[in-house]
């Protein structure tokens, strides 16, 4: 079997998988990882990773304020809000 820690991966991704689902996804993942493992066969010694296909100069902006969006617009789709805040269950740090 694979060494995929499905519990860790799903925790990091904030996804809840019951035991059945976890097993299914773990199997699926290991098959896919095995499939993509063929990359091991290609020699990439000394090859620089490609981050951006458009290898041009960075797009920059001057330090200026452009009218931002209103509080109403920002909160308009919020499932739960109160007095111009987003509302969530109490977080204990």
């Amino acid at each position, binding site marked *: 079997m694979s060494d995929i820690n499905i519990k*860790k991966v799903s925790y990091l991704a904030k996804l809840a998988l019951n035991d059945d689902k976890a097993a299914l996804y773990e199997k699926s993942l290991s098959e896919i990882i095995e499939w993509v493992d063929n990359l091991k066969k290609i020699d990439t010694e000394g090859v620089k990773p490609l981050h951006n296909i458009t290898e041009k100069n960075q*797009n*920059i*902006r001057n*330090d200026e304020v452009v009218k931002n969006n209103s*509080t109403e617009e920002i909160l308009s789709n919020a499932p739960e809000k109160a007095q*111009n*805040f*987003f509302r969530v*269950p109490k977080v204990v740090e």
Partner: protein
Amino acid sequence: MDNNWELVIGLEVHAQLKTESKLFSSSPNQFGSDPNSNVNFIDAGMPGMLPVMNFGCIEKAIKTGFALNFQINPYSVFERKNYFYADLPQGYQISQFEFPILSEGHIEIENDNVLKKIRIERAHLEQDAGKSIHDIDPKYSFIDLNRVGTPLLEIVSYPDFNSADEVINYITSLRQILMYIDVCDGNMQEGSLRVDVNLSVKKPNEELGTRCEIKNMNSFKFIRQAIDYESKRQIEVLESGGKIEQNTLLFDTSTGETRPMRSKEFAHDYRYFPDPDLLPVHLTEDQIEKVRPTIGELPQQKLNKYINDFNLEKDVAKIIISEKSYAYFFENLISSKSIKPKLAASWLVGDIFSFIKEKNLQIQDIDDRSNKIIQLLEMIESGTISSKVAKDILVEVLQNNKEPAQLVKELGLEQVSDNNELEKIVDDALKDEEDNIMKFKSGSDRVLGYFVGKCLKATKGKGNPKVINELLLKKLNK
């Protein structure tokens, strides 16, 4: 430290940059606005939104690079630090990881007249997160995204600190430099500067111990308390045979203790990767060099100038450079070169500072009085008025914005230096003072002071103390 324990501390200082707009969005970079009013769709992590880099932040970083002796990296990359939290709308923070903009800097701190070099490993740009308010409702927490995307420069030191004093010194110097170069406003109450303290203990010649990180400190007082508490805690654990668990801690200001943040399994796998929505930063030599002249004089340079060129006492000079606004005010006072720096300095750190402290003002609040203060100091310098009179006039200038020359004229406060006039006063003062004259002749210097005081009183403070002193001595020594 007790029992031979050595304290080893490294610091991560997060400085909010003083720019108009945020790092990757053009909403205002402002503190204290109504909740969720400085937020745009990019900050809120709405679907399809994309970051665009604010070049002003790069310039602030380059400035910092020059001021802190960093190597400025022309190539740097923004990466995503992935984790979930209510104040992090995108589910990732855009930061720099493998290729930061600044590397290998240092500053010197002074402790008991000994200089120590603190090495700084790196500094990088990153987004700040929003704010969660946890304590106004028993059931809910409330999220304000105003601060999301505010530009931060995270400055990471090597673990070169061995005491709380060194830590405080460093943060003070760092803050001062950043304020001087206009990169950060240094307002710690507002969270413009926040410090994570990484602390471990060890015995000499031993390997570094396991460290704990105390997060998000923004008060000198509490930083010191936290270091004291945590170092004692770790020592206790180790001395009783236990092991230190690597933990992220919060300092509870009400109890004075550190406690672990809610431990999260697998929490620290941030899965950094270069942000595909952004291109790498490629700075030209021109772009970097252009920033150099904008830095101006740094605190250390001013300190040297004040001590060596202006002949100020070290302590006095230190007070003046402690805030850029003080230095600015001071240099303004002496700009016309009609006043000796030493004179201006002593009045500034003496009476003027006392005044603003007492009235709870900022030095900037009396900026409009500068010219009148200069006038006053000129009159002192030229002997037109005595120091005693000057003190009173100063209060009138600062409090009521009165003009010194006018006051002196109106109230006839010119210093009296005329020998003849003063000789009469001195003669009067010495009349019927045979006992005291005897005391003086048998070696009591204090009596001289008494006589000077008596003469000054008789002149209503206007007498020139130097001349009075000379005349008294002449007559007493006859």
